[in-house]
């Protein structure tokens, strides 16, 4: 037990090495021996002070909420459309043939290329950002769900058939649990890619959100606030990833055996 605790501590120490080196060198080249103009690279202390100010005024929080809200809508929509379509395409050949070409054509178009159209169609604001991030999340969900539906083990299907399972029970008790881990992976990836694209979308198509905040402070040359925005995006992305991994193990305990392998 104490051995496990010690190895955990050691593990944690290793993880801290690089961030500490990075912050110390950043501090050295900005505070102790300033090499850059603060507009090019402000000191970590300045960033920290700006962070405090943005938190105190509630500005940072309102941008975070705006961005998270859009991500939530986009991912719920991506799941709502991507999962059924992915299942249909993975399980039924005609569906695959029908949609394959169209999806192959649209998938390589980066979500950002949709910005001009979406501004024309939906205007500047939440709707546009949700639409753009939805596209990013949708393809991630779709591709993973198709892969999951195809990976349903034919032996499981045979076992269920010979145990007397009908069509409906096959769907709910064999196909869905088989695909569930893939859908979850899909969700995790979708959350990640849509979070990355939300900033880009908000840079041009919104007047709130973390992306907008970064863009705004670039115009007024407040680099410290830009860095606060960037780090906030990174931390939230990291937390979302950790949370979804945790949730996966909690919802699908049988996956624990696989993560060890």
């Amino acid at each position, binding site marked *: 037990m104490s051995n496990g605790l010690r190895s955990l501590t050691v593990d944690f120490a290793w993880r801290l090495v690089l961030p500490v080196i990075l912050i110390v060198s950043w501090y050295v080249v900005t505070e102790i021996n300033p090499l850059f103009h603060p507009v090019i690279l402000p000191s970590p202390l300045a960033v920290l002070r700006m962070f405090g100010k943005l938190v105190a005024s509630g500005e940072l929080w309102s941008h975070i909420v705006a961005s998270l809200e859009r991500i939530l809508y986009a991912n719920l929509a991506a799941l709502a459309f991507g999962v059924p379509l992915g299942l249909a395409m993975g399980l039924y050949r005609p569906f695959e043939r029908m949609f394959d070409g169209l999806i192959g054509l649209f998938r390589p178009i980066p979500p950002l290329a949709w910005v001009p159209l979406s501004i024309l169609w939906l205007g500047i604001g939440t709707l546009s950002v949700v639409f753009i991030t939805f596209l990013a999340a949708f393809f991630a969900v779709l591709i993973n769900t198709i892969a999951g539906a195809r990976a349903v*083990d034919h*032996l*499981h299907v*045979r*076992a*269920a*058939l*010979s*145990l*007397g*399972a*009908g069509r409906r*029970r096959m769907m709910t*008790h*064999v196909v869905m*649990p*088989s695909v*569930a881990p893939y859908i979850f992976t899909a969700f995790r990836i979708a959350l990640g890619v849509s979070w990355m694209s939300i900033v880009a979308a908000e840079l041009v198509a919104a007047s709130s959100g973390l992306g907008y905040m970064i863009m705004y402070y670039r115009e007024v040359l407040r680099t410290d606030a830009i860095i606060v925005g960037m780090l906030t995006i990174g931390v939230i992305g990291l937390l979302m990833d950790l949370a979804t991994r945790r949730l996966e193990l909690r919802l*699908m*305990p*049988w996956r*624990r*055996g*696989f993560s060890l392998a």
Partner: protein
Amino acid sequence: MTAPPKIAIASVSKRFDSARGESVTALDQVDLAIAAGEFVAIVGPSGCGKSTLLNIIAGFETASSGQVTLDGRPIAGPGPERGVVFQEYALFPWLTVAGNIAFGPASCRTTPAEVDRRVRECVALVKLDGFDDKYPHELSGGMRQRCALARCIANDPEVMLMDEPLAAIDALTRLDLQDELLRIWSEASRTRTRTVLYITHAIDEAIYLSDRVVVMSHRPGRIRREIRVPFSRPRDPEVRTHEAFHRLSDEIWQLLRRDP
């Protein structure tokens, strides 16, 4: 032998068409009758179509020609009266031991209380008490196959189709499980006659377990000979060392070896 057979296989052939347009004959004019309550083992080299035959009886595949009947009725697809035990266990990894065993009864409109009772019964039958809440990945190979057996029996099948169930188990555990399999079969046979078709490539296993060994030849799969096993039941593990056991094993070995 005037009673009608439980399973009747009448001139069954199976051809597979490969992607290049060639046709491979897996089974060629196979005839076999299995009586109710009989334990029949099929041995043959790999690729002799023995698993194909089992899959046709299970209803997973259809014969290219000929007919398989169960109690005189042609087989149309899989059904709960024919339980299947797979070499790869095919347990549902998202269900616990109890969940896996409950799958069959719950699929067949059994009341929850009855499902519970059957699960408890079958867990005890295969001696997995205390492992009800474990997931398959937490079990050893031998325990997984016990669970798969329990899952099959929980559905109260008349026929049990076993496709090399012990092939993936290590040698020592395998001997143990052969005895367990016989014990489980005979205990389960108290409430209902259970006909077993057992596929294996292990000659000793076929002799030790079965009433009759069917020897199949390689491509195209044909029945080469049917050999009645003369040993009484319950089988004594000692029988494996008997002179007669070795002679029988040798006879089958010669049959398989002469196979071109």
